[in-house]
């Protein structure tokens, strides 16, 4: 059943992606990109990458859609049709896709427990994390304990960026002569 769900979701992804390239109404494209993010979030959950799915849903489906619509309010919601149909972009995309698929042929099989990535340092963390940190979730332990200072720095950067954006947008600006 899980494989069946995978196929259907991937089929939906393909349909949404094709529709996004064909539609000329940019508002519909922004809405479809939200659906695309939600679909890929479900696929990440199927692949057990719950934290990635979480980020994808919050950033992709939530914030990006709103930012896209904010941009559309400034530009316009209809795409101009260019009369030219060149084959070169299609060829470049096909070539890049073929190169990427060729690159995956060397990778170890999906869910292979003997893959190098599962042999190198992962067993040490899985074995020692509960003893060294006392945190039950290994991902949380790596982020908040082993790499605690790194995470603190990242949070500071994101906080500063958020402050900068708020200042640029002028939120909390007093109205001239107003009460608020």
């Amino acid at each position, binding site marked *: 059943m899980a494989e069946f769900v995978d196929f259907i979701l991937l089929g939906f992804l393909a349909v949404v992606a094709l529709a996004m390239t064909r539609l000329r109404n940019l508002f*519909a494209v922004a*809405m479809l990109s939200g659906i695309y993010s939600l679909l890929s979030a479900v696929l990440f*959950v199927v692949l057990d990458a719950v934290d990635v*799915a979480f980020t994808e849903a919050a950033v992709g489906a939530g914030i990006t859609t709103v930012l896209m*619509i904010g941009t559309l309010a400034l530009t316009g919601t209809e795409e101009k049709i260019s009369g030219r149909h060149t084959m070169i972009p299609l060829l470049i995309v096909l070539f890049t896709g073929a190169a990427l698929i060729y690159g995956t042929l060397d990778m170890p099989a999906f869910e292979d427990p003997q893959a190098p990535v599962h042999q190198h340092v992962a067993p040490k963390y899985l074995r020692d994390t509960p003893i060294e940190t006392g945190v039950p979730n290994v991902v949380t332990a790596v982020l908040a304990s082993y790499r605690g200072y790194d995470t603190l720095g990242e949070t500071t950067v994101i906080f500063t960026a958020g402050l900068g954006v708020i200042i640029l947008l002028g939120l909390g600006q007093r109205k001239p002569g107003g009460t608020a």
Partner: protein
Amino acid sequence: MMFDVTMAAILVTMALALSRALLGPSLYDRILAVNMFGTKTVLAIAVLGFLMGRPEFLDLSLVYGVINYIGVIAILKFFESGDLAHPGHFGE
């Protein structure tokens, strides 16, 4: 078996919402389709947890519900005032 049937029903509903998002025709059809699709995503994640034998991901679907709600509110607010930073009716 029960979860399989539920999952199939959710996938069919997803397909219907997707067709509405693709066909339109009006703006609000599409907004509603995205909202609908978000709700089905929440349900799909909840059912997938039981289908794959890891129901601890159920909490995640709750947060998806919140994100979906906030997203639709933001989009609608944008169409009402054309500005996300607009204070709305509470500021006046």
